[in-house]
């Protein structure tokens, strides 16, 4: 259903081939856009591996490389701790979010039959148009005793109304006969959900899982707001401290008898480490862009 999937190789017979000038201008614009998008990232990755002498001199692209920045960072420990914290939040958060979201979506998939379900659906939809604001949320977390707890970064965002609607739409499109047959055979709602609905919904669950995971990995402000204990900071807060606020990374040396790597390469290396998981899951995310699931997701 998307042009990107269908493709239009070659020129349709009614279309006259574009002139050389039009093609040249298009090519230049496209190349500029691609460079603007990708070069900053390539530059940061390359400089994180640059040899100290080159990093200090400031080059457009390094030619001598070293792993010192990474060694120093892993010796320091704070960045490692941040990565581990984020990993925990991402894995546990994504699993809990998927479970909670798909449960609610299945419960609300049959609004006609279940008395009260429509009211709950409207209640959930309304939250997409009016958020409570920073301070009331902060007060709630404080009241619940979740300040300085990793759970404060998972629980408040457990179900996204938007994702719930996307999964619900998918559930409603599942073959009716299959579910009805199971129901006639005496299968309970939970059995239908676990053994029929969920296995049939792998594509949408995968997409939503990836979206939740990216969201959890990128958690920054909630951590700033709720977490004071530096031991519990996710990687994004660590990154902000050491790269944007310019705090020196404690203990970031390769070995005691060697000068520490230049601050620039250390900063670049932290950026790369914080970006790496996103770059790893990106090809999987990308696969679903063409499947149409996402288009449905965006259109709602």
């Amino acid at each position: 259903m998307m042009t990107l999937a269908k493709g239009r190789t070659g020129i349709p017979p009614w279309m006259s081939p574009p002139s050389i000038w039009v093609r040249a201008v298009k090519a230049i614009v496209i190349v500029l856009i691609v460079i603007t998008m990708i070069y900053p990232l390539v530059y940061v990755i390359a400089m994180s591996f640059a040899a100290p002498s080159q990093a200090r001199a400031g080059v457009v692209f390094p030619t001598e490389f070293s792993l010192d920045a990474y060694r120093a960072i892993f010796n320091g420990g704070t960045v490692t701790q941040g990565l581990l914290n984020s990993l925990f939040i991402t894995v546990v958060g994504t699993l809990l979010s998927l479970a909670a979201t798909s449960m609610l979506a299945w419960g609300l998939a049959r609004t006609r039959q279940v008395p009260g379900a429509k009211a709950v659906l409207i209640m959930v939809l309304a939250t997409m148009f009016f958020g409570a604001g920073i301070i009331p949320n902060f007060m709630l977390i404080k009241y619940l005793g979740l300040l300085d707890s990793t759970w404060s970064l998972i629980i408040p965002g457990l179900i996204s109304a938007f994702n719930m609607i996307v999964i619900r739409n998918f559930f409603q499109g599942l073959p009716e006969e299959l579910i009805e047959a199971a129901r006639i055979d005496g299968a309970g709602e939970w059995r239908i959900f676990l053994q029929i609905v969920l296995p049939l919904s792998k594509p949408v669950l995968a997409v939503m899982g990836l979206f939740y995971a990216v969201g959890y990995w990128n958690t920054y402000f909630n951590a700033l707001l709720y977490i004071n204990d530096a031991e519990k900071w996710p990687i994004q807060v660590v990154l902000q401290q050491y790269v944007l606020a310019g705090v020196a990374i404690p203990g970031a040396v390769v070995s005691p008898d060697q000068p520490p790597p230049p601050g620039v390469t250390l900063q670049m290396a932290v950026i790369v480490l914080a970006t790496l998981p996103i770059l790893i899951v990106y090809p999987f995310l990308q696969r679903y862009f063409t499947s149409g699931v996402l288009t449905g997701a965006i259109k709602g």
Partner: protein
Amino acid sequence: MSVKTAARPETRTARASGPSAPKRKTTLRQRVWRERWSYTFIVPGALFFLVFAYVPMAGNVIAFQEYSPFRGIEGSPWVGFANFNAIWTDPEILQALRNTLIIAVLQLVFAFPAPIALALLLNSLLSDKVKRFVQTIVYLPHFLSWVIVISVWQQVLGGGGLVAGVLDGMGMPGFDAMTNADTFKLLVVAQGMWKDVGWGTIIFFAAIAGIPSDRYEAAAIDGATPWQRTWHITLPALVPVATLLLILNIGSILTVGFEQLLLQQPMVGAEAAQVLDTFVYFRGVLGGQWGVATAAGLLKGVIGTVLVLSANRLAKRMGGEGIF
């Protein structure tokens, strides 16, 4: 947005209680009992939204209080609309409002049409491979956090960054786009475009894909140039989607990149980078003036909701499709 799909007729219902079937009276209690297992799916999620979305909404009552965390909501004195009145005379919040509106308008002018232009450009490419390659690249920044985006921009455009180094080598020292308060608002818009222009094209691609190709064919046979085909066939097909996005944008006109601004405020100063959301954070959570900050946040939320509803009504009145 989603209500349309939600209202899809369900065959099962049509069979059980459709108008043609003779009405079998089942009491509400019987229906609830029959669906008792469904509630085990609904109740936990409903409770979640009640606690984490509706309880905080109720927490906004402190906008009408001289709230202090020690006395709590029960113990803090009620002050009526005093906090709201204070908003209109607070120079800092008026500055924040002005910054918010300037950035929002700049975004509307530059960032809003950008995905449409990019989608049209990519769509006009004849090679499928090139198109997909470019898409892969331009979607990526959407998934990076603001901390990463700004860190990367800092390394490229900041003092001592890539561009500064190159310019220094050419005899032009002192370049630093990240701390320049005069151009900061444009920088904010540029960062937003870098991050989300590609992502924004997806929805327009879907709309373009829905255009029947015989329309183009017929137009070409009638002698329409490629430009004319774009102008008279493609663009009109994008209007409904663009309207929908415009409505949503208008609703969030008072919400401009909170994390993005918060992260960069130390570099350019509050005068250039204070927006309503960051004001609420600094004045309330850090400054301890909970009442005034909450009042500002609440007012912002109410105005946003009113704007979405009015824009939606306006779009419908003008014959277009609204969100709901």
